[in-house]
């Protein structure tokens, strides 16, 4: 593999600023869809450079929590901060600028199916940098190489398996070298071996890249390998918080049962 290219320079953005304090902070976030309250007064901090896991059963508001962090969902009340900036109050260009410093891996990868895998990864670079075409392609190729998909550059997303799509989605999420990477259910629909491969990529990213990793999952082995810190949501509220080892010893029976499962996913 060739040496990693220099960090990408986003058009119109000052060079990355080191921020004191948490990478992400939720303050008393409440969100309802119709009559159903999905998040109820949720607050937590995510330490910069850490692996933060949001655990919980299906329908407990995990993905909604993640979507708040990139401004895809706005809280009914409460505030969401990303690297010191209140993202829940941003709109338009300011919100776009904040999003450029983040990456999001969707549950089903959400690759743009009308363009090739390589162009999917190149897309954020074409939109937000002034790099020449040759360098954009090189960087896209380097990202695909880092997830083991360099030979799939010209393929269309429909020609990839589920695990490959997820890895391509990860390469796209990393295209702008984000400081915060949000990952929604990385193991959903994947076999245990592929899940392990994806987890390995994410661990490497956290270890060497210094990226803050926030992962929604209900796969306990993934949570153990990726998480420095874990919150467990239940019925829209935080039921438990701590390291995986601390959650193993939780007073809550539901938390212990959940943590004891081999693979709840």
């Amino acid at each position, binding site marked *: 593999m060739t040496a990693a290219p220099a960090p990408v320079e986003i058009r119109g953005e000052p060079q990355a600023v080191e921020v004191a304090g948490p990478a992400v902070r939720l303050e008393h976030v409440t969100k309802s869809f119709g009559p159903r309250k999905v998040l109820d007064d949720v607050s937590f901090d995510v330490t910069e450079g850490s692996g933060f896991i949001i655990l919980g059963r299906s329908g407990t508001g995990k993905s909604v929590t993640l979507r708040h962090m990139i401004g895809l969902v706005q809280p009914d009340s409460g505030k969401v901060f990303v690297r010191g900036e209140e993202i829940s109050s941003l709109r338009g260009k300011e919100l776009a*600028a904040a999003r450029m410093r983040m990456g999001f891996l*969707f549950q089903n990868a959400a690759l743009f199916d009308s363009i090739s895998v390589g162009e999917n990864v190149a897309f954020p670079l074409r939109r937000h940098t002034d790099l020449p075409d040759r360098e954009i392609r090189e960087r896209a190729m380097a990202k695909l190489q880092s997830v083991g998909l360099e030979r799939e550059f010209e393929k269309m997303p429909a020609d990839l398996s589920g695990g490959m799509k997820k890895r391509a989605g990860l390469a796209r999420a990393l295209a702008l070298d984000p400081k915060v990477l949000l990952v929604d259910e990385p193991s959903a629909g994947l076999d245990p071996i592929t899940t392990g491969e994806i987890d390995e990529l994410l661990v490497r990213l956290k270890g060497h890249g210094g990226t803050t990793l926030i992962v929604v999952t209900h796969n306990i082995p993934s949570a153990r390998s990726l998480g420095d810190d874990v919150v467990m949501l239940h019925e829209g509220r935080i039921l438990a918080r701590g390291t995986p080892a601390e959650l193993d010893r939780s007073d809550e029976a539901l938390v212990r049962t959940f943590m004891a499962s081999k693979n709840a996913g």
Partner: protein
Amino acid sequence: MSYMLGGVPDRAMSSLTAFGEVSLFAAKAAREALSAPFEFRETVRQIYELGVRSAPLIAVSGVAVGVVLSMHTRASLERFGAESMIPAGLAIALVRETGPLTAGLLLSGRIGAGIGAELGAMRVTEQIDALEASAVDAFRYLVVTRVVACVIALPLLTTLMNFSGMLGGFIAENAETGLSFPLYFQRAFALIEASDYVPATLKTMVFGFIIATISSFLGFTTTSGTEGVGRASTRSVVLSSIGIIVANVVLVRLIFFVFPQAAGG
């Protein structure tokens, strides 16, 4: 029948709400189409996808419509010994009304269904969220580009429809009487004035706006998975067609008011 508000049936209320939502969506599309930043590259791509790729449908349909119209016109004018007026009668019918309306309805099928299905599929597979997460204004990128492309493409395709129709008329006349190509077109254009062509063709810009906004709205707001995508596609065609037919009544009235000579003079 249930009643929700002051004796207004639920269905009527939800139809009114939907009409209001489409109107706001259309107003936003119009406003953003006229303000920077402009997505030139994507707009050109959409003009190709929606406009250029619709040309074969319009050309073939135009020829068929011209042949049939010519046969009907001949049957009527023969009784009065006015066969020499067939090219001019056909051309006026095509340019003033048949061409624009037929092109509008055909394109509401091809383009409306396409936009509704494509954006609907992008919504349910989270591709629209992925665009937003990539710091791209999805409304401007997906909706405004399609609206502008349709507004530009419809008058051009209508002009193609008119010429194809005249060509169809020539084929029918040539087969019937052996009328030459130059003489047919000389007669066809003899009575056509700018007031016949310009307002009738420009009104299809409104048709393009209606098709693109209604189908984009339905695609953009799709829910309920693949079933929802199918519904968005079907409704796009039905509602765009109704929208075009109703708008045509208003526009024809307006054209007669502004260009009295177009009323038959």
